[in-house]
């Protein structure tokens, strides 16, 4: 099963490699990983898309929690959430393809953000699956380059992942 795990961690040198190293050392799978500082620059927020059995996902969250730099871990996919990914895709745009690609970008609510005589760069923000279908919709021979950020996600409504800068901020999941 595919899971989106959000991690709040200290924005410190090496913190990211601790997370990445954990996944490779314990043979967990990473589909995508994104990381950037939050509104509080001392914290980074990391989103990992992974897959595994329930037991594996339980271990992943426990092992992440065990890292000293990790403040909070939440499996976003356990409840209502939104996920988005940004893609920049450079396509060969000449002749009749120019019009077709423009139309396709519009359908997917993408923007053409760079135009030359022979190329477009389309910016598209959507779920990962939708980005995949955009790629599918284009003639493969026209794609020159794609770059994707990986998934970032957030819980819906009042579900908030924030550090309570108090003593007992570390959540340890106890299985009922």
């Amino acid at each position, binding site marked *: 099963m595919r899971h989106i795990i959000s991690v709040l*961690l*200290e924005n410190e*040198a*090496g913190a990211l*490699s*601790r997370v990445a*190293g954990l996944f490779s*050392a314990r043979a967990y799978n990473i589909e995508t990983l994104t990381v950037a500082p939050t509104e509080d620059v001392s914290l980074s927020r990391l989103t990992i898309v992974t897959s595994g059995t329930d*037991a594996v996902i*339980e*271990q992943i969250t*426990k*092992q992440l*929690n*065990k890292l*000293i*730099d*990790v*403040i909070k871990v939440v499996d976003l996919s356990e409840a209502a959430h939104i996920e988005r990914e940004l893609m920049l895709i450079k396509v060969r745009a000449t002749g009749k393809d120019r019009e077709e690609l423009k139309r396709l970008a519009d359908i997917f609510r993408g923007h053409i953000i760079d135009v030359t005589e022979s190329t477009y760069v389309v910016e598209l923000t959507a779920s990962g699956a939708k980005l995949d279908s955009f790629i599918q919709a284009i003639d493969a021979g026209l794609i020159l380059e794609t770059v994707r950020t990986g998934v970032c996600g957030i819980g819906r409504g009042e579900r908030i992942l924030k*550090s309570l*800068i*108090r*003593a*007992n*901020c*570390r959540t*340890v*999941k*106890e*299985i009922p």
Partner: protein
Amino acid sequence: MTMMTGAEIVIRCLQEEKVEYVFGYPGGSVLHIYDALFKQDQIKHILVRHEQAAVHAADGLARSSHKVGVALVTSGPGATNAVTGIATAYMDSVPLVVISGQVPNAYIGQDAFQECDTVGITRPCVKHNFLVNDVHQLAVTMKKAFYIANSGRPGPVVVDIPKDVTAAKCKFEYPETIQMRSYNPVIKGHLGQIRKAVHLLLEAKRPMIYSGGGAILSNGAEQLTRLTRRLGFPITNTLMGLGAYPGTDRQFLGMPGMHGTVEANLAMQHCDVLLAIGARFDDRVIGNPDNFSSLPRKIIHVDIDPSSISKRVKVDVPIVGNVPDVLEEMLRLLDAGNASPDPEVLAAWWHEIEEWRAKQCMKYRMKKSIIMPQYVMEKLYEVTGGKAIVTSDVGQHQMWAAQYYKFDEPRRWLNSGGLGTMGVGLPYAMGAALQHPEMQVACVTGEGSIQMCIQELSTAKQFRLPIKIINLNNRYLGMVRQWQEMFYGSRYSESYMDSLPDFVKLAEAYGHVGMRIEKPEDVEPALRKAFIEHKDDLVFMDFITDQKANVFPMVAAGKGLADMILTEDL
């Protein structure tokens, strides 16, 4: 407030932490620190002969005492040599602070002389590590290092300090306590879960207690013993947990696992309620997890590390917490409810266990002219009155020591259970001997393992450590030979060691006492001579033992616990 250099700050922090011994080896990047060490006399530095031994010795000191072990190594090769020691401590959750020098900040990343990415190399085998690039962060980082190493599930912490930081100056302020928003280990167990556990224990028809290294690391042996006696249940201690419950007690079934006793393994396998305490259902303990899980039994698991719970075996009642706190709470609930297990039900279970015990699976055949290694262990136990600190290396001798030396108290048995590092025995004994000068310290080893850190005989001489080395010399890498005999058609590929040194002369060359013992009747007199006559000397006893002796019982790798191979020739 006076200004101090980074080097002075490091030493001051160690003093504040009441560190008595630092094991280390100097080099370019730590020269400032060694200079600061020279100018004080509170902390004693033990100069080892190889950095790996520095970390092992600090580890041995920590295992034998519940203190944080401290090692000091230089950058580059100093740090890489320390890695095996760090990984060994990590696998067995031993609290260590390892200070490594680093090239100056301005040189980092330039492939400078003796530069390596210490933080990167050690990352997967430490509880946490730090690179301190600013002297103002040094004291607080040292405080964090000690706090992290010795709280929660303990483990090694590396503090990597560039040389310029040890020369830079700042005011020294050492925080008394530390708070980290990202690190707050759970101590008290969940009361509801503990209640559920106690209920299960009281209802059990075939209960079993299985405790591991966590019971010792948390100083929970006393509570474990009280709870076990209060319930009257059978108990087994893992290799890492030996001594948490008295090894001579009737309720103790011996060690479980690959070389565990019949009674311990069958009781683990056939119990209906298993109380696991500070143990991790390791592959050497439960064998095949699918086979183990195929029988219906309820498992209660007490551990301070949530990630240990339901890792290899699905657990029914998880309790995250510190072992002594949780067990104390269990005892309180039992007393409050004035509850005890049904004695008749328990008697029937004990009857079954006694039948298993009657098989006497540890029996071995004595030989007239060849020393049996098991016999040496039995005699070692007798001669030391069961009161020695026993360290071991890794292999057959380790298993025989664990099987035949009965540990009645915790922190008396030091070995590398998790990583299985050959060569730890002698440095462990050094750490233990320094920490406990009043106690007898025996290092049980083999001719393979001892040569992996043999250079430390020199350190032992310099610091006059009266360690007794029991070398079970069968001219083979015994455990490898045993597996080759059993599973590889007796093709002894590279397990025979030719050209062994004359260990007596070797010991004498280092200034110690050497003995060679070849006959069974000489075993006990030699041990007595070593422990009594040569009480204050390091004695290297080279016991020439039976080359064919194998460790039994044995559960082959990947097999179920009930699938034991017993001594073939009895």
